[in-house]
């Protein structure tokens, strides 16, 4: 089918301009990523070559191997994964019920709770790790992974509640009510009907939580000494490590995040856009 004749040369020209600008922005985002991949996959000695080639002809796993086998790195990766997974579990356990309540019930204090959520979403929680460190020493939580999990959960919780709220909004209440008229209890109706339908959205909330925890630097560094997460390990080694160690560390922290943000790209607008 032919398009209507509104397609004038002038609009064609302006569309071209729009595409050109969009491509420029895409290059601006992608070029540095390409360069860190190049730096992380060069031989260690190639770091000192100058001027460097920008073409990927001399790739090698040498630098990455060096990084991963450096003292403390692999255990810090394990810590990061453990902390992030525990944050997901705790965040969903605490946050999903609240999200469900916001989606299903009208009650007094509902608006107040939603405002409190917006405030905590923006609140500089990481800064609180300084007073928390003092409390954690008293409570025996200092330098434990669980302590880091607690503060990461506090950061992720508002997002978990907001996402699960919109997820359960999307699951028709009538389905649950139908299940209840057919003899299910409220809990059974939730478990057998609402929850399976909500799973993809809950998975997105889980992945976003993982990203918050995986990327968090300040609190993880303040709250640990031995049990470092990966960002804490890299940050505290910055001044004592060769520059190729830092490039490899940078790439290692970015790589999983790229995959995750691709998986949850449909939910990004919900996560940050919801007022």
């Amino acid at each position, binding site marked *: 089918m032919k398009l209507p004749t509104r397609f004038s040369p002038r609009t064609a020209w302006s569309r071209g301009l729009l595409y050109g600008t969009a491509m420029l922005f895409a290059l601006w985002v992608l070029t540095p990523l390409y360069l860190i991949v190049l730096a992380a996959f060069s031989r260690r000695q190639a770091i000192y070559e100058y001027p460097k080639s920008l073409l990927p002809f001399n790739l090698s796993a040498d630098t990455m191997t060096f990084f991963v086998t450096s003292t403390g790195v692999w255990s810090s990766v394990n810590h990061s994964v453990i902390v992030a997974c525990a944050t997901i579990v705790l965040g969903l356990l605490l946050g999903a019920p609240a999200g469900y309540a916001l989606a299903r019930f009208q009650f007094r204090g509902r608006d107040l709770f939603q405002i409190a959520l917006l405030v905590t979403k923006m609140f500089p929680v990481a800064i609180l790790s*300084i007073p928390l460190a003092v409390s954690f020493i008293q409570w025996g939580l200092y330098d434990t992974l669980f302590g880091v999990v607690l503060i990461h959960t506090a950061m992720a*919780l508002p997002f978990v509640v907001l996402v699960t709220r919109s997820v359960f909004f999307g699951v028709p209440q009538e389905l649950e009510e139908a299940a209840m008229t057919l003899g299910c209890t409220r809990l059974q109706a939730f478990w057998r009907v609402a929850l399976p339908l909500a799973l993809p959205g809950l998975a997105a909330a889980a992945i976003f939580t993982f990203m918050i925890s995986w990327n968090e630097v300040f609190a993880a560094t303040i709250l640990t000494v031995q049990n470092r997460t990966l960002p804490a390990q890299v940050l505290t080694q910055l001044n004592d490590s060769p520059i190729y160690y830092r490039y490899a560390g940078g790439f290692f922290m970015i790589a999983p995040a790229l995959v995750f943000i691709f998986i949850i790209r449909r939910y990004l607008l919900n996560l940050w856009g919801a007022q």
Partner: protein
Amino acid sequence: MRFKLESALPFGLLFPSVAFLALLILAPIGQAFLLAFQTETGEFALAAFQRMASDTAFNEAVRNTFLLLLTIVPLQIVLALAMALLIHARLRGQTLFLYVFAIPMAISDLAAGLVWLSIFTERGYLNSILQSLGWIQQPLLLLSYQNPQGIFAAVVVAESWRATAIVMVILVAGLQMIPRDFFEAAELFGAGTLKRTWYVVLPLLRPSLQTALIIRTLFAFQTFAVVFALAGRTLPVLAGEAYTWYYSNRNPAVAAAMAFLILLLSLLATVVYLRVLQVREEERAR
């Protein structure tokens, strides 16, 4: 009995998250207050704040933090607005563009600092390119401690690269809530692209702009890893000094005083944005 249980249900569901956030946010705020204002003998004094302010790096840290804020935030708003309008123009492949533009959201400030380190360092990619083109004879020392402007510029670039994405996502979400008719009506009356942006889009986008400004400003007060990665302590910033007081100087009281200051600045900035960019309740989409 049954009725009572049902009406208590939402509160029961809300309770765990409310209790948790109260414990992990309100309690540390109180603790920060005590740490910062109480001396070891239990009296209240400003000793920690005096110690903090007398440090030579403190004034510099305050100045740098605000200079970075005043440079980066407007730059990000303009860049993010351009990106968001491009996404909104419904180009073919807009979902791909949205994904690419949003990628830096998934990158920590530490990792972003390291990415740009590989570009701006002495034998880095920027110097390599300039040298190959014959524009320079020897590498520029952009990140040298003798070149504070160079470091400042590098931090501005790295932060604009990383944190524009979040503003863009907020603005795209805001644009989606504006009915298409508004744009079409403006076009029908002959308003050009610039006029439409200025008179139609920006006023309607005010709630989203307000959110974006608050989030970005509050994050800017917490910026430190990107600066550390590029320049160590050569360019002191507030959050970095709080970290140094706690971690290197082992002085939780002064660190808590700085944390308290950052909280206070965050509160202040939020109030200013809420007052200056007043958003009426009916403009706020639910």
